[in-house]
């Protein structure tokens, strides 16, 4: 009897130190950690590489200079101004339409054939390669609507590009508002629009803003569609109107990368550092806004 119960204790204990049950799991987790670490390590290498390569050119003069045939004195001011102008215009066009569409889909429409068509359509648009938007912008805005290779055409193209993301993130934010609050508002005699304007939108604002900033931040790095609609690669002036020709930071970087001279590669690296810093700032702003506004809403 003594030995019997001893044996039963053994069966509980035995496999713990053995390789058969714990070993593979530890090994697998180690491999997994490696799979996570490898891309993140490459991210670090990428950033370090760009900073090291671009360091000699990172100066105030680089930020405020104009392009030049001489890489040593070339700067990115027109590209920065172009990027800023394009992004602001893109936001102005994409945000009202995107948030409006999100409100319509979340609050106004009942599930039906049209709604599911629009939903399917948005999820498909989100997967369309950006260069295809460039083809659309080229035909629709540059040629058919005769905007030419202008700031406006570029921004309109990018607005269509970021629209699906804006709609999807806004819808998610709207969905976080509990239905009971809407009901409470209706019970006070408010109609649908009042409910949305006074209750739903303010409460979902942090989420909507964050989503919008992140979507628009993506647009800053977009290169292919702007190449398609004919953003110039050599611009020695600042854009002064909606119809002005322009360049943008990623276009400038692309242009420098495709030159064979080493000096231009250094410029490209410096431009990349600036671009990454800009994106980081935008992302940080988004997070900061979310935290701040969420504290204010406080629920």
């Amino acid at each position, binding site marked *: 009897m003594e030995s*019997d119960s001893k*044996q039963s*204790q053994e069966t509980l*204990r035995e496999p713990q130190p053995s390789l058969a049950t714990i070993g593979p799991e530890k090994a697998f987790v180690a491999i997994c950690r490696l799979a996570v670490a490898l891309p993140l390590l490459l991210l670090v290498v990428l950033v370090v590489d760009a900073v090291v390569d671009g360091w000699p050119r990172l100066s105030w003069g680089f930020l405020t200079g104009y392009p030049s045939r001489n890489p040593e004195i070339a700067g990115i001011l027109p590209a920065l101004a172009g990027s800023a102008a394009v992004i602001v215009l893109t936001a102005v066009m994409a945000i009202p339409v995107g948030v409006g569409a999100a409100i319509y889909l979340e609050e106004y429409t009942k599930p039906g054939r049209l709604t599911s068509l629009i939903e399917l359509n948005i999820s498909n648009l989100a997967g369309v390669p950006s260069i295809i938007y460039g083809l659309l912008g080229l035909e629709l805005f540059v040629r058919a609507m005769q905007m030419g290779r202008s700031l406006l055409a570029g921004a309109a193209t990018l607005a269509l590009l970021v629209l699906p993301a804006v709609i999807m993130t806004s819808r998610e934010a709207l969905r976080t508002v509990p239905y009971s609050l809407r009901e409470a508002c209706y019970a006070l005699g408010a109609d649908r629009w009042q409910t949305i304007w006074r209750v739903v939108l303010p409460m979902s604002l942090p989420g909507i803003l964050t989503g919008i900033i992140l979507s628009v931040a993506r647009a800053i790095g977009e290169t292919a569609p702007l190449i398609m609609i004919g953003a110039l690669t050599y611009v020695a002036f600042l854009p002064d109107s909606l119809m002005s020709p322009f360049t943008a930071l990623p276009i400038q970087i692309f242009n420098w990368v495709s030159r064979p001279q080493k000096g231009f590669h250094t410029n490209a690296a410096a431009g990349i550092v600036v671009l990454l810093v800009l994106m980081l700032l935008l992302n940080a702003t988004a997070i900061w806004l979310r935290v701040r506004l969420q504290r204010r809403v406080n629920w």
Partner: protein
Amino acid sequence: MEHALKTPRETSSPDPTRRPQTVVRPAEESGTPQVKMRTELLRAWFGPTEVLKGISLPILKNRVTAIIGPSGCGKSTLLRCLNRMHEVVPGARVEGKAYLDEQNIYEASVNPIRVRQRIGMVFQKANPFPTMSIRNNVLAGLRLQGVRPRSPDELVEKALRQAALWDEVKDILDRSGVSLSGGQQQRLCIARALVLEPEVLLMDEPCSALDPIATAKIEDLIYELRNSYTVVIVTHNMQQAARVADFTAFLYLGELIEYDKTDTIFRTPRDPRTEAYITGRFG
């Protein structure tokens, strides 16, 4: 007393499929019941909340022990502590001892996986594996442990017969486990646990999602199972406890208020709180 705690056990072989089936008489016929499991000052937490405040409870071999109590009293947690499932939840913590035969399953050297191989569990909501057929669901425990049974069909049939499901599914063994009705799914889960021939079977409100007919079937089944297994059942249904259990433990706010023969608990409860609960004054 000391003697009774040391449970004679059939020789255990690593392959559960080859373990000889034990036939043990119900207690009334074979004298003093033996203690299969017991907890000693068992405490459990979810994050900072203490849900079990020192439970000491015996579980007798080849008997059905019911754990009753109002919702939130910790009865499911107690059950999950008995096969070290409580710690699976992030932030959950256990202190104290729980013995299976003479082995404290919370000792550092004990592998929880081995504990669970010997103590089966049936959950509140039937959870057959949706990606597996009925047959593979029954065999899932063995397969997940990396055991390849030599005669799987026999095992499947035996387990499904024990779970009183065989006649209903014998022609559709290759259909998905989730194609069955709720009551059938629950019996499938019982069969899945029985294939491993566990020494103890833990059941966490196994009938709460079922209709009365399915419930009656499972209750009959539990009554049958006590011949070969030790069963612990958590239930919020006092009639069910009265129908199936030999012993009943009443838990209230994380404490064991009363433990006795089911008859005694229901006829002459000692504690006023037990009486209040079983007469329906709270819970």
